[in-house]
């Protein structure tokens, strides 16, 4: 399908289905704005935050962690062999942030007031920091994306300004997400005595930012492999395998700090008390932290396309699982009542993520995001760790 002079978008049955999901979500969203949150969601005074905050916002932002960890590895540490994945990581991250902001906008009751925190400073609030950092960082990412945009539509004057600002934006684009990824964890410090002690900790900001960071390479792997398969390309497996070194070390440090923290607070025993929370915690730790450590540490697994993919999927699912445990599992006992998202909450969530897939496809098909094919085959100077994918 030709869209104007510069853009194309191929229509497939799957993409039509995704568009249908988006349309349903738009309708549900409009209904929510007219009739209020009670009419669309199953939220209550006991469960003021649900699927949109727990999944779309917290997980959306975490999954976008690929943006800042890749930026750090590629643009600050100049590990050039990872350049082929840098732009895809930036794009996913930008889209993840947009999803988070849309879901936040849907979720706030007095949405016409959304701009107030820019002018009425509640600087003693963790949410204030999150709000500012996310707004600024999304702006930074849009500007960073501008560099790619201008490769297609050349505007020398703007390009010059942007190019000058880019080093500054790059640093800002790592500092801001480091701050708010941790602050998303700090949000739950207020839940002392309510969030189950296996998750509540004064170190929760560390656990959130650390996991968002090590999630990055895993997310890039999953997304890169999926995109490669969808477009019939060869996945950049050597790059992905090499990235596992970063994730592996960070996973091990995460596990050690987690155990030390539990021992220090004297709640390690709660992990084995047989309660629902303890079982969920053990699943989180064994299946999504220890198992990926073993898989990443085994060369015969991490160097295989499916091996590195499955281990990375475990890491990605594990971070989602962790956020869900914080928001739902760990709070359930203290909040009382019950919550399960309504069909409309699901519809909006599904619609938003469908929109993300569509926009991703549109952008990679129209802008230079993915590496040129010959690079992916290792024939280039900048890619390849010595063997062919």
């Amino acid at each position, binding site marked *: 399908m030709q869209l104007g002079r510069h853009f194309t978008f191929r229509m497939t049955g799957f993409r039509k289905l995704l568009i249908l999901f988006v349309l349903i979500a738009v309708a549900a969203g409009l209904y929510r704005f007219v009739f*209020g*949150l009670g009419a669309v969601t199953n939220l209550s005074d006991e469960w003021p935050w649900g699927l949109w905050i727990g999944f779309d916002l917290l997980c959306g932002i975490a999954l976008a962690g690929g943006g800042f960890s890749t930026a750090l590895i590629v643009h600050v540490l100049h590990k050039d062999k990872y350049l082929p994945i840098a*732009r895809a990581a930036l794009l996913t991250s930008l889209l993840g942030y947009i999803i988070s902001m849309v879901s936040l906008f849907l979720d706030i009751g007095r949405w016409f007031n959304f701009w107030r925190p820019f002018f009425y400073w*509640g600087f003693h609030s963790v949410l204030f*920091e999150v709000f500012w950092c996310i707004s600024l960082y999304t702006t930074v990412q849009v500007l960073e994306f501008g560099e790619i945009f201008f490769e297609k539509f050349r505007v020398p004057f703007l390009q010059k300004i942007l190019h000058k600002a880019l080093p500054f934006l790059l640093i800002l684009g790592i500092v801001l997400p480091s701050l708010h990824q941790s602050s998303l964890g700090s949000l739950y*410090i207020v839940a002392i005595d309510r969030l189950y002690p296996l998750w509540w900790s004064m170190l929760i900001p560390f656990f959130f930012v650390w996991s968002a960071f090590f999630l990055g390479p895993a997310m890039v792997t999953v997304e890169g492999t999926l995109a490669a398969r969808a477009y019939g390309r060869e996945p950049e497996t050597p790059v992905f395998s090499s990235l596992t070194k970063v994730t592996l070390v960070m996973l091990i440090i995460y596990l050690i700090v987690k155990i030390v923290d539990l021992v220090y607070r004297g709640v390690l025993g709660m992990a084995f008390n047989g309660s629902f929370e303890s079982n969920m915690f053990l699943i989180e730790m064994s299946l999504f932290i220890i198992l990926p450590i073993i898989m990443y540490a085994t060369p015969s697994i991490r160097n295989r396309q499916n091996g590195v993919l499955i281990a990375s999927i475990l890491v990605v699912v594990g971070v989602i699982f962790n956020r869900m445990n914080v928001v739902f599992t760990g709070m359930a006992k203290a909040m009382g009542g019950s919550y399960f998202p309504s069909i409309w909450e699901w519809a909006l969530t599904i619609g938003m993520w469908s929109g993300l897939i569509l926009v991703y496809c549109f952008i990679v098909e129209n802008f230079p995001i993915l590496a040129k094919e010959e690079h992916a085959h290792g024939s280039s100077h900048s890619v390849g760790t010595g063997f062919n994918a």
Partner: protein
Amino acid sequence: MSKGVLVDVTRCIGCRSCQVSCKSWNDLPAKLGEFSNNWDSPGKLSADTWTNVNYYIIEEGDQLKWRFVKKQCMHCNEPACESACFTHSFVKTKEGAVIYKPTDANKDYCVGCRYCMIACPFGVPGFQWDKAFPYVLKCRFCYDRMQEGIEPACVTSCPTQTLTYGDREELLALAWSMINNDPRYVKHVYGEKEYGGTSWLYISDVPFDKLGFRTEAYGQPVTQRSIPSLTWDVLKWTPYIFFGWGAVLTIMRAYTKRRAEVHDESELYEPVDNK
């Protein structure tokens, strides 16, 4: 001086005058309740119900004790809701009331994010779920009356002197003298230290954990530090991390750049051909 109310649980007869006077003074809508197998009505706090008397039947040996406990916003000394709000829509006044600025001070900054509801350790604030433009509402300590030097509506309407309005410090001294002069009382003033202390204080002759008060969480006594002080312990590092981490990254970038060859990135990527 910061005001407070001392609630003597032993005196309450569960007449619910306080609930009625609260609704009428604050013009809160009433709803027809459903029949339920207890005397709690409507049973919990919400945006329309700012105070509620809960009923507890406590068995001690062969003795049955009925106790009635008025619940409402505790008006923390350092409120979690105030610190959680990123537009500062909740504020602790010098008189001791924690008020919501959109409705009590005509400053409509609230975004409706409900983080205050997550933050409140007592689960107090209620959200107008059925409104298109909802507010977060809770007891405001009859701030309008307080400014005129009048006690809250619930205190005025209480026929058994369960509720005593006064300066918090004096009430605290009164509470301890009552406890020390009467062996029936539990040696604990709820609200003296919990979460940094609250303006509303409770004394009782049955243990507080049997009256719906949280005295411990997951086997540990509830914290005596205020929630704002806990979050501030983390938040205060923000500027240092911002500049420190920024400096580290800048240095690392400059250092590695000299060693790395510079690429023309535009040669590296291309749009996917998906025809």
